[in-house]
């Protein structure tokens, strides 16, 4: 929980949930697990507000509660999870992936779940059906069964999972956090200290038998205002569908595995060719559910299996496939390895090594863009050769001595390169020590990750600043749009409409356009930096797992 991470989490919480939640959230992040009284006391907010903020955080999985440190019976403590809050940055990517895999229905399901945190299947299906019906042509409605089937597909491929049921106390009926504010002060039953992971429950991915018959309702225009107001408030649906108490959440880990696979496939396509990347894609698809998230490499697959599972559009002959596999194995990047000879050759995808290579390529690209291609040459040289003296660096890189010295010192000052002293005499006299330059990949990756967090926080702040600067203008444009909409609905004449439109002057319009452009640019930049964050985080986590 570094300062940069806390700053970024604060900004994200403020944008998505408001300032009160931000205050409570950052306080929990900075001070660790605390009970309700302490939070109220230290943040200076009212009991009501703190309770509501904690509800919001728990609903979205950003905070968990457990029994206090002093043993059962002491007040529950709340613990905020920094990782979960940083995932908010990645929501657009999750939604886009769902769209590419499962179409609009999938996209809307994931969007609903991300917005609400934890919901039941029935409520999600209904809301999504309504939204889809909204956008469809007149007279068509979306059937609930279609949405349910997409939901089930998402569960089957593990993109959605059930929230773990919380331990009960006494005869409480509802265990899982529901949409109405529950009293967070109730102490939990004596539990083990580690919170249960969703996957430790056997029914994690079981779709409940839900009776959902019906079609989506198209909303009429007059209901618009009411709908917007009640959207935030929980809909008290009188019907029951047989899945009360079963709440679903998005399985972020599964999405991360998917992203990782995508990156590996595109790397293979860049390095070799399209067919090799298709082969790797097939191998990864076959090992989707059989490989654990922290595995070093996928389960061995025989060449026969791969041949049978290739998509039919790629009809390559068996000997050609063998050649491609041999080439993949021989490649210095070592994406694919050979694990045995049975079944025509057993092949695995080396996940951790692929991640390390990708992280190394990221580091090299950062050095190249920041300092130039010659510094990048020195950086790559040091990565390969580990420890080198200054003279050797100059000789290998074929850069004149003065320039090489300058570049090395710049890299050293930015902490991308470290100096290792090897003394010849015990008194470390400078004239009698060897000074070797070296690059350590893991610490450098961590340092870059922190820079990424700071960069995203900077981008978010700049976006908020730009919005604040033009607040007056934005409000004016919003008012005018509202007036226009109401005039159109009540059937006004074109002259009235143009008169209203002209209330915004041309330079103001231009200013609004530039503002929109800026905001879009900052938004897309945030997403791009998030890709780097994902790569570096996966690499660092993979080294944690194996060590």
């Amino acid at each position: 929980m570094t300062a940069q991470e806390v700053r970024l989490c604060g900004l994200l919480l403020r944008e998505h949930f408001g300032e009160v939640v931000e205050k409570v959230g950052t306080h929990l992040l900075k001070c660790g697990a605390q009970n309700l009284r302490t939070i109220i006391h230290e943040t200076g907010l009212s009991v009501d507000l703190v309770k509501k903020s904690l509800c919001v955080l728990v609903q979205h999985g950003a905070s968990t509660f457990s029994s206090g440190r002093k043993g059962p019976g002491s007040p529950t403590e709340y613990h905020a999870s920094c990782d979960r809050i940083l995932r908010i940055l990645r929501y657009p990517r999750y939604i886009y992936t769902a769209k590419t895999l499962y179409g609009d229905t999938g996209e809307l399901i994931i969007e609903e779940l991300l917005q609400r945190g934890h919901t039941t299947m029935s409520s999600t299906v209904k809301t999504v059906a309504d939204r889809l019906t909204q956008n469809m042509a007149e007279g068509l409605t979306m059937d609930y069964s279609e949405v349910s089937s997409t939901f089930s597909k998402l569960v089957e491929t593990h993109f959605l999972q059930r929230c773990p049921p919380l331990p009960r106390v006494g005869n409480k009926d509802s265990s899982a956090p529901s949409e109405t504010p529950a009293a967070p002060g109730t102490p939990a039953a004596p539990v083990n200290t580690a919170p249960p992971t969703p996957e430790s429950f056997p029914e994690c991915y079981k779709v409940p038998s839900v009776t959902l018959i019906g079609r989506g309702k198209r909303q009429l225009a007059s209901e618009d205002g009411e709908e917007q107001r009640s959207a935030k408030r929980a809909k008290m649906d009188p019907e029951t569908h047989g899945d009360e108490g079963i709440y679903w959440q998005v399985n972020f880990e599964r999405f991360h595995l998917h992203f990782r696979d995508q990156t590996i496939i595109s790397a293979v396509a860049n390095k070799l060719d399209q067919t090799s990347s298709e082969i790797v894609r097939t191998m990864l698809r076959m090992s989707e559910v059989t490989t654990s998230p922290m595995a070093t490499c996928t389960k061995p697959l025989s060449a026969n299996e791969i041949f049978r599972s290739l998509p039919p559009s790629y009809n390559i002959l068996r000997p050609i496939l063998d050649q491609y596999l041999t080439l993949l194995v021989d490649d210095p990047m070592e994406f694919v390895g050979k694990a045995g000879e049975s079944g025509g050759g057993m092949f695995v995808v080396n996940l951790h090594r692929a991640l390390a290579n990708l992280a190394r390529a990221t580091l090299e690209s950062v050095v190249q863009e920041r300092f130039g291609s010659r510094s990048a040459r020195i950086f790559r040289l040091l990565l390969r050769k580990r420890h080198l003296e200054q003279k050797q660096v100059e000789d290998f890189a074929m850069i004149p001595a003065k320039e090489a010295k300058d570049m090395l010192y710049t890299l050293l000052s930015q902490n991308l390169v470290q100096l290792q002293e090897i003394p010849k005499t015990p008194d470390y006299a400078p004239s009698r020590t060897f000074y070797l330059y070296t690059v350590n990949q893991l610490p450098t990756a961590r340092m870059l990750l922190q820079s990424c967090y700071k960069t995203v926080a900077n981008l978010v702040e700049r976006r908020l600043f730009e919005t604040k600067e033009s607040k007056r203008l934005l409000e004016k444009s919003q008012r005018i749009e509202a007036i226009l909409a109401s005039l159109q609905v009540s059937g006004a004449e074109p002259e009235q409409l143009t008169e209203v439109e002209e209330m915004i002057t041309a330079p103001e319009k231009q200013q609004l356009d530039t503002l929109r452009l800026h905001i879009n640019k900052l938004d897309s930049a945030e997403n791009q930096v998030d890709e780097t964050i994902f790569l570096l985080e996966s690499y660092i986590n993979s080294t944690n797992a194996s060590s």
Partner: protein
Amino acid sequence: MAEVKVKKETNLSDPVEVENRIKELCQQFPHGITDQVIQNDMPHLEPQQRAMAINKLLSLGQLDLLRNSAGLLYRLKDSQSTSKMKGSDNQEKLVYQIIEDAGNKGIWSRDIRFKSNLPLTEINKILKNLESKKLIKAVKSVAASKKKVYMLYNLQPDRSVTGGAWYSDQDFESEFVEVLNQQCFKFLQSKAEAARDSKQSPMVQRNSSFATSHEVWKYICELGISKVDLSMDDIETILNTLIYDGKVEMTVIAAKEGTVGSVDGQMKLYRGVNTIIQPTGLVKTPCGLCPVFDDCHEGGEISPSNCIYMSEWLDF
């Protein structure tokens, strides 16, 4: 028979005769003779006389005094070199000898001082003298530009002093290296593209995209962009820089001894490659390249709200 007897009766105690005899012995044994050999040859000679003769020859500069593990050796000096040193005194001869011993690596003036135990002023005078006589020359070392090493006039300086093919007049020729770099890369890239377009089976494709270091060397020599002759080792150093640029990868394969370009039974193959990722997201933002990134925080002089780099980037 009679002549032999005549020889034997010659008076060998004549100093000139002694010297000549010693010179003949030296010629017989070009590697040098020890005192023992002289003694064996002229057993009746007094050690004093022997010593006197040897000293005379040494001072005349006709004999070289060397030391090996067994003892002292005397060797006949070249008549050519002896003529050079006429008119020089002993100190100069000593200095000259030291410089000669250093071969084509040259020797620094401080080292000469250590070896000869002469004071610095003397050394400088002698070096100037010898230089004016065109017997030695000073060569600037490429490693330390202020350091001058001395070597015999007609010797070629060693590569370590001049830096080899990449240095001309003590200057690193970076443009030359750059040009070579790009040419090699273009050659390998075009080879890889030709292989890719050939649409054959993947194994053949990959193998034809490889080029041995020998092929690259031949191509560069035929291009004729280099004024100096480049060896295969030079080309390999250039190809190594391409590897460090991430544009080329190398494999080593075993090759028969006889095939062209193989060194010690193996050949190095190079081929052009692409990078595995696009430039990463962080560097697409101004913060990723910002020189004052560490000084930037909200509310400070440099902050995201008033960042000029961001303003320029947004208006781009």
